[in-house]
């Protein structure tokens, strides 16, 4: 499978990483090198093998569905690039 420039642009968009048009051909080439390496996996017979989810065969622990933490808005906002009036602030989303 080969990645063309349009696919590279689509992947960058999906990943929300801005890539300048001039940089797309080199990016596509890097993807192809890595995917070429990954394609060795096609040689492996995986018939009947379940995809591994967790390396340790243990069920996820459960706990009571109760609040265990909270009431610290200052701490939550303390690292925000832009916080106002107790909220995270972002550019206008809705026209």
């Amino acid at each position, binding site marked *: 499978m080969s990645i063309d420039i349009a696919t590279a642009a689509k992947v960058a968009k999906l990943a929300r990483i801005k890539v300048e048009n001039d940089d797309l051909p080199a990016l596509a080439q890097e993807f192809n090198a890595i995917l070429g390496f990954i394609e060795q996996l096609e040689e492996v017979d995986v018939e009947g093998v379940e*995809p591994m989810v967790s390396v340790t065969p243990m069920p996820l622990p459960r706990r009571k569905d109760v609040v265990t933490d909270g009431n610290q808005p200052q701490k939550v906002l303390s690292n925000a690039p832009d916080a106002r009036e107790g909220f995270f602030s972002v550019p206008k989303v809705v026209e």
Partner: protein
Amino acid sequence: MSETALTKLTIADARDALRKGEVSSVELTEACLSAIDAADALGAFVHKTPEIAMDRAKAADARIKAGDAPDMCGIPVGIKDLFCTEGVASQAASKILEGFRPEYESTVSGQLKDAGAVMLGKLNMDEFAMGSSNETSIYGNAVNPWRKGNSDAALTPGGSSGGSASAVAADLCLAATGTDTGGSIRQPAAFTGIVGLKPTYGRCSRWGVVAFASSLDQAGPMTKTVRDAAIMGRAMMGHDPKDSTSANLAVPDFEAMLTGDVRGKVIGIPKEYRMDGMPDEIETLWSEGTAMLKEAGAEIRDITLPHTKYALPAYYVIAPAEASSNLARYDGVRFGYRAKLSQGDGITEMYEKTRAEGFGPEVKRRVMIGTYVLSAGFYDAYYNRARRVRALIARDFETVFADGIDAILTPATPSAAFELGQDVSDPVQMYLNDVFTVTVNLAGLPGIAVPTGMDRTGLPLGLQLIGKPWEEGELLNTAYALEQAAGFVEKPARWW
């Protein structure tokens, strides 16, 4: 004791000296802080915390005096920048976490703190732990204290825990924390002549450790000796309800298990780890290590791990896939860097510009590869296939352990430390560094790198031992026997 003698101490020796009153934690800490200040050329410590260190050292001295202090009490250590440390910069060597000061402490660094360990500062690493040479860091390279023969070319300390490895090898601290997703503790340990333990997946809590690939990430100690790995490892491990994959198992006293007796243990030598083009020196190191364990009374058995070849390609699907998901949180909203926006830019432009400017090239590459393999139409062909291959790799190990193998001996790295600044235009070449270590992460097993020899240019080389799940104690004991037989005592000549 002179300051340099103090920084050269092992954890075990420092612990004993502290209890005998031969040295104080304040003296140890001051000695390390001056060693750190004289070693900026190594690029190991990227955020120094001398005030915190002195406060903790004083508290540790009081605690030791009062009696019944834990083993790590008063021991000066470095913390990899991947661990969130309360009020102290924790940016995973990335621009995107510039200025981030966590309001909380990771469980692992918190356990060390509670045990009385003294944090000297934060250590350099590859950005988001993605790299094998510490060259993807926003802070610049960490440098290996070792040099080739008479050459003054700067060598990599390995990665991603390059700063940790450099700091421990150069005696800037007594030990350091590392993390290992595909070899990031063991490869740098081998490149710098120190010991690096990656515990069984689930032993160390991942809570508060900046996530790279959650099903593979595991913290562990990087130390001067196997005994120190036993002591510090025990302090770092343990169940944590805040990490749903943390194992609810008791952590034994590993140090008490170090007898050096490996008589009757069965050591497997996997034929698939004999790679084409492997340097003779690695081959020799491996057979010498095998002979040492045989001499110590272990039984050596040839084994096969048939899917080894597919571990790296499977890893380079699974790790980027998980990274693309984990790193989605860096959006310029809640913490870290936000790009300057132009007139009319909306929220999408904010995300795209922030991530383009905040992530380095290798991180972007992996996030985008991960996005691709998870995207509609490719999920089965890449991601699910890789997870199936992962199951087969784990099964290979289960089979040999069920057949009576106690531990597996392999080289830790395919070469000695290489020069910084080599051509990295082909990312796949760099990925090959993890060829011997990555299988262990995929199978969730414990692995340890032990320095056992030198190459002809005078650089350290290490071997890796792989153990059964949750059997770190037995693995450490086998590593201890290997360490004693190898008698590796060399230190880098100081040039910095």
